[in-house]
């Protein structure tokens, strides 16, 4: 059942590439949309088959692939992976829908999109470390191509930077996995928590350190974040949606599944430092976002900040905070995708994203009123207004972490407040006031004569954004569905350190 989640996108991608003869762009797009819709439906089917009351892995499939290196094809889904698989299916579909005016190589484009989606599914569902690594590396080249072929003016630089950062992250992760699997003597790449009896704390810390840095690059956390703003600025809107909404989640998923899930003791030891790191990341991301002129860069930096919450929640590792982390992954996926979509609409209509230039886009007659409205909604959700997804996740994260790390949590709350600052700056500058899309010349008379009329936004262009916005509100109003889905898994994960300590039969640091 789970294999179909890999088969649909991968076979679809190959089929698109190899289909004989010329194909019109529109037909290719429809085929890709059909496949992605199928993938979404299948993900929903998996959701129906999924038993939320079971904290373990379900719907498992396995066969030995390459025995010599312990690479098994083992898939399984639990409360942590299930929501992410759904987000992946939904957001890939959204990014395919909002791909418009594709001037060149549509086949390759949609095939890569499908390939990434399949690889991400594979990474979320893998139960074998090497298999996870394989899928983790698999999305590297397609995304590099997506940025470097269909990107902005400086795309070569941004794409290469992304590639190198992610490649380094991949090899750090591989090194850690090899170390973990082989240090015990036999090649076991299954995902089990290790105990100090098996592995000394020093070794654990080294391996965990390598994993942490590897995933911190992907998430990204300060100071490994520099590739993200560049990649987002140069990537086209659909690719940004995919990157922010889905691919960054590979990092946070890895953080929860592999760092916390496999090194519970070393994690507990490092947790205070990690909480501090999270606070630094949140504050740095937020402050840097305030300083941005480019709307897309601002949203990108907001991602850096908001990903820090997940590290905080993971560091606290209480049942509530981990549930908050899952909520934050989903809601950040939806919200950042929404914001990138809307910034994309603004850019397409005005040919600029410069906050020094854009003014008054909310103008009901000649501006982009509907886009502006959705933007305000998205911004509010991101800042954590009650009634929307952002509030639930931030509340859970802070509620779960406050007792463990009061200072770090308070600092992150400040960061959450800063989100409101920079996004209000964005809305205030770009959407309020008198409509303008060119820099003011300084001459009041000339400026007043500028008659800007932006092209109207068709309903179908806003449909994906509308869908995401309703998802954001829906999740904010009715969070219990997702809560029920993940609660068992996150609770089990939170109890892991205690469990391991109990197995050790003594204190952690004694």
């Amino acid at each position, binding site marked *: 059942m789970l294999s179909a989640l890999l088969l649909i996108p991968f076979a679809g991608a190959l089929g698109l590439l190899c289909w004989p003869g010329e194909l019109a762009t529109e037909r290719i797009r429809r085929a890709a949309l059909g496949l992605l819709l199928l993938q979404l439906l299948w993900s929903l089917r998996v959701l129906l088959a999924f038993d939320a009351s079971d904290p373990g892995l379900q719907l498992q499939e396995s066969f030995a*692939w*390459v*025995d*010599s*290196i*312990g*690479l098994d094809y083992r898939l399984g889904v639990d409360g942590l992976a299930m929501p992410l698989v759904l987000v992946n299916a939904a957001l890939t579909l959204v990014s395919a829908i909002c791909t418009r005016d594709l001037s*060149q190589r549509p086949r390759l484009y949609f095939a890569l999109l499908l390939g990434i989606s399949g690889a991400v599914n594979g990474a979320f569902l893998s139960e074998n470390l*090497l298999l996870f690594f*394989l*899928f983790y*590396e*698999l999305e*590297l*080249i397609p995304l*590099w*191509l997506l940025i*470097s*072929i269909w990107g902005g003016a400086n795309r*070569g630089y941004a*794409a*290469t930077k992304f*590639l*190198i950062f992610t*490649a*380094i992250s991949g*090899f*750090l992760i*591989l*090194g850690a996995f*090899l*170390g973990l699997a*082989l240090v015990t003597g036999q*090649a076991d790449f299954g995902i089990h928590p290790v105990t100090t009896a098996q592995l000394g704390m020093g070794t654990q810390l080294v391996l965990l350190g390598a994993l942490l840095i590897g995933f911190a690059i992907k998430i990204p956390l300060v100071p490994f974040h520099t590739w993200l703003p560049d990649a987002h600025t140069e990537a086209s809107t659909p690719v940004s949606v995919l990157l922010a909404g889905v691919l960054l989640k590979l990092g946070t998923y890895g953080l929860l599944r592999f760092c916390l899930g496999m090194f519970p003791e070393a994690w507990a030891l490092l947790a205070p430092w990690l909480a501090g790191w999270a606070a630094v990341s949140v504050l740095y991301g937020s402050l840097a976002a305030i300083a941005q002129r480019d709307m897309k860069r601002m949203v990108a930096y907001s991602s850096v900040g908001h990903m820090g919450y997940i590290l905080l929640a993971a560091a606290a590792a209480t049942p509530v905070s981990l549930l908050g982390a899952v909520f934050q992954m989903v809601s950040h996926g939806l919200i950042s995708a929404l914001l990138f979509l809307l910034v994309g609409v603004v850019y397409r209509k005005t040919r600029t994203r410069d906050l020094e230039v854009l003014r008054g886009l909310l103008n009901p007659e000649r501006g982009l009123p509907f886009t502006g409205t959705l933007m305000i909604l998205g911004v509010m959700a991101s800042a954590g207004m009650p009634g929307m997804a952002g509030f639930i996740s931030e509340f859970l994260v802070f509620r779960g972490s406050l007792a463990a790390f009061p200072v770090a949590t308070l600092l992150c709350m400040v960061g959450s407040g800063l989100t409101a600052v920079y996004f209000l700056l964005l809305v205030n500058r770009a959407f309020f006031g008198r409509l303008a899309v060119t820099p003011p010349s300084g001459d009041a008379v000339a400026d007043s004569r500028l008659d800007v009329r932006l092209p109207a936004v068709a309903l179908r262009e806003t449909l994906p954004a509308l869908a995401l916005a309703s998802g954001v509100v829906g999740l904010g109003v009715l969070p219990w569905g997702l809560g029920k889905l993940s609660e068992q898994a996150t609770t089990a994960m939170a109890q892991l350190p205690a469990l391991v300590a109990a197995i050790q039969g003594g204190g952690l640091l004694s």
Partner: protein
Amino acid sequence: MADLFLAAASSVTTAASAAEAIASGLGTGALALQLNAGAIAPEVAVLLTLVVCLVVDLAGEKAASRWVPPICYGGLGASLVLLALQWDSPLEPSFLGSFLADNLAIAFRAVVAASTLISLLLSWRYVERSGTPMGEYAAILLAATLGAMFLCGSTDLVSIFISLETLSVASYLLAGYMKRDARSSEAALKYLLVGSAAAAVFLYGASLLYGLSGGATSLATIGVALQTSASPITALALVFVLATVAFKIAAVPFHQWTPDVYEGSPTPVVAFLSVGSKAAGFALAVRLLVGCFESFDAQWKFLFTVLAVLSMVLGNVVALAQTSMKRMLAYSSIGQAGFVMIGLVCGTEDGFSAMVLYMAAYLFMNLGAFACIILFSLRTGSDRIADYAGLYQKDPLITLGLSLCLLSLGGIPPMLGFFGKIYLFFAGWADHQYLLVVVGLVTSVVSIYYYISVIKMMVVKEPQEASDVVKAYPAITWNLAGMQPLRAALVGCVVITAVGGVLSSPLFDWASSTVAGTPILQQAIAAAAIAPLG
């Protein structure tokens, strides 16, 4: 040239006796039993092909270009079949202990023969266009193959030296095959000078071994003798022998010849040198180091570690700066040899299997890449990386093939190279070779960068950014003589590279049964397993 014929003549005599032994059959007893000449049947097939090629060449240019290719396919195919039949057969040293057809020898001989077969498929058009006699070219390449194949199974200093020289002399000739091209002559001369020096060094090392062991030439006997000899001369012999091996596999700092030779030589020859010759070099390394210097385990492993680290770092870093495709692949092959050396240094079961597996993977991915650049240079006459800009529009086949092969060389999943590399790192880590694995991981990132920059040239550049060469790209035709084999080789290598990774389980089994069927490796593994306990 004279050397070649000398070497060929000596091979002919051995082969003749082999043929006799085969003819006299198994029943006639003692001679066949002792010589056990059936072990070299695959080489005999290659030798017969060589002779037939030379004879056909006498019949004139036309007949040669008509008949030489099928003869070569038949001969090499027969050789591969014979190798397959030898697999796991009971081990009898042949020719009084100078040749042993264990599974390691069979595996590496198969790699050599396959690399020759693919190189020949790539060559026809190239040779045709350069206007040189086809039979002669095929004969020299087959002579090199013969040397390389004998080298893989040699267990005696004399037979090692003879096969080494057969391989080397034929390689010098091949490097200088484009007589009118100054760079080709330069390559041949450089190769000859450095190679002769290496051969002299080997001879010196071999003479020391001969003396130390009290007049034995068989590697096994020398190995036993060395166990009791602690004289510093042994270290000297080890260094000399190691230098020869390093020269053959182009490990830093014995790599200086590689970029120049690769750049100047005809590209199909480079394809052979980078795979076939290197595979033979690794087989030689196993025979000498594992089979003979077993008692100096720590020493040669240390030296090899240094060589591997230097090769990975220098090969991959210098490749970044290259503008010529062939030079880039030359440095990349130095780096790849460094990766393979990880497996050799481990000395564990996984280590040896990983080495064999990676050689096999390297055969397909590297030859696939060479097929693409040969095709590109046939169509455009260019070899500069910058000239590949915008190629995807004009030639999707080359773009796809070269991209997949380079990604595989860079170790990107789901290509074959990914699995090979993972296995090497896995084996290295299991044997606690942390330094090597970490260097390997870091230099892999570096290698991804330069492989990717070629792909970027081909795939990412827009039509308006295309190079002049690509803008003036000729229409694609396959009906010229020798193009169909080139296409077949290209497609075959690329398909195996792309699909072989996902279906690599049998390949892994094959690699581990290679190790299982090789006595010297089993001894080394047993020794390595005992050592930590003691």
